[in-house]
């Protein structure tokens, strides 16, 4: 394990010791036990076979550490029993490479279905009993929403257990972006369409780290502006949808419109409501002119006022609060053990936000930033955290937009450093996005891993639904609002 580095972190492969499996296991589990986050765990193919690779984030230091194991033959002792955060990563390793994590308590498919998956067909956990019934929902849902399958074990309305099986959106993104470099940037923009800026920015950081790029304040202020606009649009949309799921239509209608107003502000920057075509590996593709900046600030003021008006109706409406409060509770301990990220973690009182913990670009100048926190871990807390973050983002944009005016400041990238690994962390609106890239001896990418915040948070939703009524599912689901394609890739 080499010295920890700030995000985006670059490591030379030749300097990385290949730890004995026991040692690797010990390092990762003790690091996580001491409070670090398992940002990524994967099996990396090398000339002699597969090696485990872990990226660990130390929040108090703001650094990332890398751990690589010796070659793994066909199986290894699972980390999950000692480090629950690893559970889905290890399932993924089994599915993608056939390496069996021995002793894994829940070794099921991740994205592949039926005979495609080494884990075999998906077998749902079943509760048995004369009055137990099972409810199956999806993959096609009753709305305009991505596909996924939910299986509830119920007794009457009471949910004992919810199991979520995904993979319906699997497009083979991680492999394709290696094979087709011309499409790479566009694949990043569509890893999760509602997080175009978040994912593309994480990729740009990885590329900049490998290609020795440098960006100045103007470029970084524009990137941060786009990232915060994405957060505003999605948080506003989520609060509207939460209102809709409690049957409170005023906030639902207003926020539906206001979300679009934020998307249109992103379109002012680059022509696309989702930020397509704004970012490039070395910086940005568009310049912000003073007139556009003025228009943006004016619109932000008006839209900000309307969002405040629309959202505050929620806190004044007893019928909304009665549905929000104490629904879908997730304790801080559960959130911590599962390694939850983003607003869902912060709503359970877990103080983590990559903008403060692993800052890069514009956020380096905002070190005193305090993440929004709530402690009740229920739907209400997840709504309130979003509202606090909307206010924070509006305040941040007032500062970042004036800095973003002018010619972008960036240096073109050099050829990527050969035989290196780069890791970058960005706080997307759903939470921490982690990208890991490896280059071959010629400096070409030969391995790439993406962790969307949803990959970590879906299990949180399943846990939050235990002991709830099945009719609480739409509300709980919306309060997490996770990505299917970001998980499925």
């Amino acid at each position, binding site marked *: 394990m080499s010295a920890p580095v700030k995000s985006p972190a670059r490591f030379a492969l030749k300097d990385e010791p290949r730890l004995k499996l026991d040692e690797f296991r010990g390092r990762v589990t003790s690091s996580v036990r001491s409070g670090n986050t398992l940002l990524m765990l994967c099996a990396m193919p090398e000339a002699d076979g597969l090696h485990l690779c872990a990226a660990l984030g130390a929040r108090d230091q703001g650094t990332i550490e890398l751990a690589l194991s010796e070659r793994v033959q066909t199986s290894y002792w699972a980390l999950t029993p000692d480090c629950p955060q690893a559970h889905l990563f290890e399932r993924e390793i089994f599915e993608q490479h056939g390496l069996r994590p021995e002793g894994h308590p829940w070794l099921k498919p991740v*994205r592949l*279905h039926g005979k495609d998956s080494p884990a075999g067909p998906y077998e749902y956990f079943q509760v048995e009993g004369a009055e137990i019934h099972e409810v199956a929902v999806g*993959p*096609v849902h*009753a*709305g*305009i*929403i*991505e*596909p996924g399958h939910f299986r509830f074990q119920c007794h009457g309305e009471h949910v004992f257990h919810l199991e979520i099986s995904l*993979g*319906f*959106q*699997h*497009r*083979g993104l991680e492999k*394709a972006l290696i094979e087709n470099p*011309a*499409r790479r*940037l*566009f*694949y990043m923009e*569509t*890893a*999760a*369409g*509602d997080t*175009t800026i978040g994912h593309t920015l994480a990729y740009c950081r990885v590329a900049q780290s490998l290609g020795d790029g440098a960006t100045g304040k103007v470029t970084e202020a524009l990137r941060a502006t786009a990232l915060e606009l994405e957060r505003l649009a999605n948080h506003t949309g989520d609060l509207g949808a939460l209102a809709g799921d409690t049957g409170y239509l*005023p906030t639902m*209608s*207003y926020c*539906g*419109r206001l*979300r*679009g107003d934020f998307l*249109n502000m992103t*379109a*002012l*920057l*680059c*022509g*696309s*409501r*989702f930020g*397509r*075509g704004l970012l490039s590996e070395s910086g940005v*593709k*568009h310049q912000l002119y003073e007139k556009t900046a003025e228009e943006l600030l004016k619109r932000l003021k008006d839209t900000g006022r*309307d969002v405040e*008006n*629309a959202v*505050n*109706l929620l806190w*004044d*409406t007893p019928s909304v609060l009665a549905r929000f409060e104490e629904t879908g509770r997730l304790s801080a301990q559960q959130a911590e053990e599962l390694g939850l990220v983003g607003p869902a973690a912060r709503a359970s009182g877990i103080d983590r936000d990559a903008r403060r913990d692993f800052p890069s670009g514009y956020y380096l100048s905002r070190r005193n930033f305090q993440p929004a926190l709530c402690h009740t871990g229920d739907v209400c807390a997840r709504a309130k955290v979003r509202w606090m973050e909307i206010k924070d983002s509006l305040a941040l944009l007032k500062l970042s937009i004036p800095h973003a005016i002018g010619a972008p400041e960036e240096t073109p990238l050099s050829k990527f450093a050969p035989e290196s690994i780069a890791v970058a962390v960005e706080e997307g609106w759903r939470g921490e996005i982690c990208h890991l890239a490896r280059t071959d001896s010629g400096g070409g990418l030969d391995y790439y891993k993406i962790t969307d915040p949803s990959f970590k948070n879906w299990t949180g939703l399943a846990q939050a639904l235990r002991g709830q009524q099945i009719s609480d599912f739409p509300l709980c689901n919306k309060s997490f609002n996770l*990505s*299917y*394609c970001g998980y499925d890739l």
Partner: protein
Amino acid sequence: MIKALAARLLQKHRTVSYPDGKPQLPPLFRGKPEIDREKCTRCGKCVAACPVQALSLGAFPRLDAARCIFCGECASACAAQALRFTDDFRLAANTREKLVFPDSHELTAPLDPKLLQIFARSLKLRQVSAGGCAACEADTNVLSTVVFDLGRFGVQFVASPRHADGLLITGPVTKNMEQALISTYEALPAPKIVIAAGACACSGGLFQEHPQTRGIPASIPVSLYVPGCPPHPLTILDGILRLLGRIPHASGKR
């Protein structure tokens, strides 16, 4: 209650005037592609710049909007400035062939009179997301907000395929979603129509030759192709309204 009423006044009426007026689009919006044959030097840089092979170079460049992700790389690569994307959002067409710019593009023609009689004033749609990135879904969803207010045209997204007259498909149709899509289509009572929204549904888009994607099966006939990555909500709205004969159809090419 009084606060809710005050909010209603503050939030105002916000529905776009389309199709009666011309909506405002951002200056950088990349809509209908235009290729100026006079200026084109046939250098082929646009073809090389396209990440999804939407452009081909015969006597002059042609752009297949079914494949195009409207990234604008071709326009940036064109030194002669012969290729540009205008702010015209009206793009949808009845067949894939009619999505080829500049010479084959034809805006959507209305359904045939029999279907029009059934659907023109009331069309219920079921949406199936089959491998998309959720951007098409998001900009389809907004059609039901107060801004676009799809309901005023008698068009509505419904929860069950049994209640639907048509299917709106997004995404390149992943292997894992193929069967679910076919089952949903089969659950729709006849007569039924199908709309493919977004580059992925039209052609596979970015994911066109991935082993994990299949495309819309041949057994599902498509009546409306809406290009874009994702299509602007107005592009989808315009396509649907034209299909329903709610916007006067100028016959022939534009």
